């Protein structure tokens, strides 16, 4: 029961106070793109959660091997990115040949979701937080939730920053960035400073 509570708390932390999107600015480029198409946000977040789960699990299994020697530790980031590329390749192939109709409709968000995962939940995060595998997996699911929260929020606010009352230079993207900066300031209050 206590373990389950810890897992839920870890997932909730990933969505809220340790939301790396808002407190660290990680993955903003792709969240902004996802927010432009609100209909795809749910599926996009599911893909992010799935790839995060795979990355966390593979990273957790590979970490002891990769940290065993200096040369391997040097290769570590490249090997983990290669694993993420392989995970995307396998998922894309499975969907393209197994569920071609689904892939045709939603395939274009598969690759940004996978690439975003490398940034969001590469086991660097796991290393930083020193999480055991089960909690790392809960954190990965929480990362999907965090992505959903950020993208949904942006999908609602982005159109409001294109209004006539605003100075033209700030209209649109500049206003979104400043708004996100203020939001990030609030999240910095939760985290108490730099997460990494």
């Amino acid at each position, binding site marked *: 029961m206590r373990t389950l509570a810890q897992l839920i708390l870890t997932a909730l932390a990933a969505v809220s106070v340790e939301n790396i999107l808002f*407190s*660290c*600015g*990680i*993955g*903003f*480029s*792709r969240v*902004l*793109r996802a927010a432009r198409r609100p209909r795809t946000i749910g599926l996009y977040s599911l893909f992010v959660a799935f790839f995060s789960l795979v990355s966390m699990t593979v990273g957790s299994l590979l970490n002891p091997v990769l940290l065993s020697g200096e040369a391997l530790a*040097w*290769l*570590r*980031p*490249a*090997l983990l*990115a*290669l694993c*993420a*590329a*392989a995970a*995307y*390749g396998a998922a*894309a192939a499975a969907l*393209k040949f197994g569920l071609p109709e689904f*892939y045709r409709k939603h*395939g274009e968000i598969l*690759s940004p979701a*996978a*690439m975003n995962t*490398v*940034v969001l939940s*590469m086991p*660097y995060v796991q290393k*930083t937080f020193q999480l055991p595998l089960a909690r790392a997996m809960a954190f990965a699911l929480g990362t999907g939730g965090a992505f959903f929260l950020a993208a949904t929020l942006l999908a609602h606010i982005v159109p409001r920053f294109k209004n006539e009352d605003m*100075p*033209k*230079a*700030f*209209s*649109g*993207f*500049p*206003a*979104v*960035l*400043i708004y*996100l*900066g*203020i939001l*990030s*300031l609030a999240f*910095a209050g939760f985290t108490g*400073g*730099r997460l*990494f």
Partner: protein
Amino acid sequence: MRRGLKKKIRIIFLNSAFFRNPVPVAALSIYPVIAAGYSLQNAVELSLLFLFLSVPVGFLFCLIGEMIPLWVRPAAVLAASAVFYLPAARLLESMIPGAVAALGMFGPLMICNSLILSRANVYAPSHIGWAVAADTLGCAVGFALVICLTGAVRGLWLSGSVRAAEGGVSLPFFGLIFVGFLAAFLQWVNRRRTLRTGKRGGRP
């Protein structure tokens, strides 16, 4: 080189570096700027790493990108970026000893930099070598300008020097606000350019 081609290449370079700088205009590669660009030292190291990584990845996909099916290309670009990260990091380390370790997780995360991946995935395969070279170098200059400016302002604000300092404006929120103002400045510049071009075009 033909004069027309030279002019086109110059336009591509200037757009990627200044007028359509992908960081404040297209929201690409924002993370390193806002999270890691808190000192000029970090900014210079990341700019060099960006250059060493984006040039070979861009050229490789200019040569072979069209041969790779679209659905496989993102994985191939990420894999190539991972492979080229190793010599790029070694090169940076040989130029600035201790730089890779000092960058921490920010160095390896350049492997999946959205600007490098999107340019190699979409732009490089469909353009000629000269255009890819101009775009890649332009993006590297544009990225360096934004991150170095952000890093210098933060360093000067916090410690009065270009060295890294903790707390306050070194946190990501300041990076977002600062890039927001840069984006507004570029929007203003581009609007003026458009108006000027329109006026010139309107002349009899």
